[in-house]
């Protein structure tokens, strides 16, 4: 239950940081904003490590870790760059819908790869989530058409 609440709060924080990032990008540029983001994040992590007295780096066996496991940060940059290409091209409502759909499809696929079993509940649940988002997107779309 703690994890469920934590995951929801993390999602809420994503929106908060997206808005702040957009404002920063407006002032200094998208990549420049991303740079500031990573610097601030890095400083914060280092402070956390000092406060919580993290054990030395020799406690982790770096050579046991596959190279691709280090690439999460790089994918993040692809996401930032890619979003900049598509966001001006399609209406925001559809961007959200398609990105969310992609996330859920990938989630179900990755869970299948990791656990080696396909879960009917996740597919049905995933379909329902996409349906719910699509339904609300339709209301938003009607609303924007009216204001136009």
């Amino acid at each position, binding site marked *: 239950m703690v*994890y469920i609440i*934590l*995951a*929801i709060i*993390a*999602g*809420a924080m*994503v929106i*908060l940081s997206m808005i*702040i990032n957009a*404002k920063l990008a407006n*002032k*200094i540029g998208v*990549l420049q904003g991303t*740079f500031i*983001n*990573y610097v*601030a*994040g*890095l400083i*914060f*992590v*280092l402070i956390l490590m000092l406060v919580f007295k993290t054990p030395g*780096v020799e406690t*982790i066996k770096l050579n046991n870790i596959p190279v691709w496991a*280090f690439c*999460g*940060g*790089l994918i*993040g*940059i692809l*996401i930032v*760059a*890619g979003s900049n290409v*598509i966001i001006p091209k399609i209406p925001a409502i*559809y961007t959200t819908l*398609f990105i969310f*759909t*992609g*996330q*859920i*499809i*990938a989630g179900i696929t*990755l869970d299948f790869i*990791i*656990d080696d079993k396909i*879960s009917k*509940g*996740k597919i*049905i*649940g*995933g379909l329902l*989530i996409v*349906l*719910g*988002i*699509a*339904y*609300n997107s339709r*209301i938003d779309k009607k609303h924007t058409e009216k204001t136009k």
Partner: protein
Amino acid sequence: MYQIFAILIGVLITMMITINGILDSYTGNFYSLLIIHIVGLLGVIIVLVVTKQKIRFKEKIPWYLFISGTIGVFVVFSNNICIQTLGVTLTVSLGLLGQIIMAYIIDNYGLLGMKVCRFENKKLIGVGIMILGIIVMSIY
């Protein structure tokens, strides 16, 4: 065409969350956060150099625009530990629910200088369907 591109970005987001979670299972919470931010920072620097972009501070920037990176640390940390207990799909789905709820709250009150866009009660149906989907996911 751009629609497929948008779906691909969604796929990348989930892949990133999963890969970061796997790294976390090897290194522990703090070192994974450290590695993720160092790799990301190096990546941005390379892109900035290759595209020959400079960082200029023409105008005064309010301090709170600089702290979004610290929020990011919390998000990555939370995802890393949730994925190991909840699995990928459920972590991502709960995150989406959190995003939708937060977006509605910000729009409704016009927080953070956003335009006020009142919440329509009809949208509770969509949120309800999403929650139902998450319940189906967690029960199975």
